[in-house]
């Protein structure tokens, strides 16, 4: 909906911080749900590690944190100016 004054822009869904909060709470809820379902659904296990409770939850979270932390360290070594190759 365009504002009557014309020079003010229409507000979009994520302009409201409440909606961002809602998305985040939705994510937390889904994460909690998948953990709870781990008790309910019998998982067929192909590898002993999979039998560890919440293995995929922990692995997914830890993998991403490690990924980002290593990548941040790599940046210190690898990052150059944007026109590095143009010089």
């Amino acid at each position, binding site marked *: 909906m365009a504002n009557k004054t014309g020079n003010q822009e229409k507000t979009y869904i994520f302009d409201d911080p409440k909606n961002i909060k809602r998305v*985040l709470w939705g*994510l937390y809820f889904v994460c909690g749900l998948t953990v709870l379902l781990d008790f309910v659904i019998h998982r067929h296990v192909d590898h002993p590690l999979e039998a560890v409770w919440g293995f995929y939850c922990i692995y997914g979270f830890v*993998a991403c944190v490690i990924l*980002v*932390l*290593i990548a941040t360290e790599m940046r210190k070594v690898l990052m150059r*100016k944007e*026109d590095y190759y143009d010089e």
Partner: protein
Amino acid sequence: MSSFGSIAPFLIFYVGAALVAVTAGHVRSAIMLLTPVVGALNLYAMAADFNATFALFDYSLIVVRVDKLSTLFGYLFHLAAFLGIIFSLHLNDRMQQVTALLYAGSALGAVYAGDLLTLFLSWEMLAITSFFLVLARRTERAFSAGMRYLIIQVLSGVLLLAGTVVIGYTTGSFAFDKMTLEGLGPTLIFIAFGIKCAFPALHNWLTDAYPESTPSGTVFLSAFSTKVAVYAFARGFPGTELLVYIGATMAMFPIFFAVIENDLRRVLSYSLINQVGFMVCGIGIGTSLAINGAVSHAFSHVLYKSLLFMSMGAVLYRTGKMNGSDLGGLYKSMPWTTVFCIVGAASISAFPLFSGFVSKSMVMYAAIKEGHPFVWLALLFASAGVFHHAGIKIPYFAFFAHDSGIRCKEAPLNMLIAMGLTAALCIFIGSYPWWLYSMLPYPVDYAPYTWAHVLTQCQLLFFSALAFVWLQLRGLYPPELPSTNIDVEWTYRKMLPAFVTAVRRVVRQVTDRIRREGGQIISTASNRIEALASQTGILGSTWAISTTAMWILILLTGYIFIFYI
């Protein structure tokens, strides 16, 4: 004139390209759209074991060899070409449109090649036609990236030819069938395939050139070259154990680069290598489940990767920007593109009901079953990582994140149609995988939709998302910065030129010194000789008779002495 159903698939595209070159406007668009349709009908009419040979001197070249593997890739390439053509219909760029068709045709030529010589010819045509797609951006950066791209692609072709010649000489046959990685010939061919497949350390041509192409050029590029290499490995080296470890490495290392890369199409190029890693790994495992996984993953990959490159292409087309640091908040201006990008992101991340879910898991399951637990863990890490950088980072930094203030028009209609169709296919394959499964080279005995698989995949992905949120909120996530990250290309773009410059400097110093000091040495020497021969010099002066007689006596004595011993 051969009848329908027995035309070499590449020929239809080459004829289409020739017609596109001499037409314009709606006629050209119609020809471009019809080419893959006619091609697909030709494939449909083709007998399941059709072979077409062509005599060249003493050799008969198998230009078309039809079996389940080539047919699957054949249809895939027709589909990818069709979608790419719709995406590029707004263009009025003859060079780009002609080379796009030639490029797709060359990929078909390679996939249907029954012998190594035909494969080599298609391989080189792929290199040359795709080179023009890189150039099509018509910037200086694109030109130099294109030149580097061409050199590396031609190198791959030369290795393939050398390997072909060695194999032809030792075995007397050019047949392109399963090989073992022993001896010079197969090794050369393995490396040639490896270059095109973007093996670790041989990968940089891809991340260098693809992001420099046009919005639609990259869509074509992402679909064909590497997948031709995947096909070539599936045909030539299935079950080669080395490929398992190469594949796992390919799946792992690009995700680190993708996290810190700013150019979003370069992020996608890194994730392309990561996804091809899964395929290479499956081919290396080599069981029917693993090969099915690799091939079906190639199929879903071409679609979702095209979709992601299309959405980024649309952003580039509308905003002229591609760096994460310049973009953000575009969901306001390009809502449809945002939705399609998210479908592509969900597919590459292998969310249930999206295409990656039904194909990638076959490779991972095969890795466990065949006793590669560490490879399995690496692939699992790569699965979490790909969601992180392609699934979240791409849509987040382009369409959400902080509002960049850019307000533009939604993508053109033809782009939206192309993205919509591709997105629909991604969801169709993910929700109804049995259509894809029925085309795979081996009978499929795999059920993707078990409660356990859906749950574990959701756990992996949602907790990866949670990690992203946590890192963002804690300020630990590396911000998008205008930057270049050095990769293997540093060796040939910086180190090698620096080395050459250093060598030239040393050579110049040495030659300068020789020129300078050499002149002095010569003039000093000639002065001394002159002095010796002058009237006061030892040779030029007049000697007394007695002295001369004594010298003659000494010389003659010496002579007699030497004569008698």
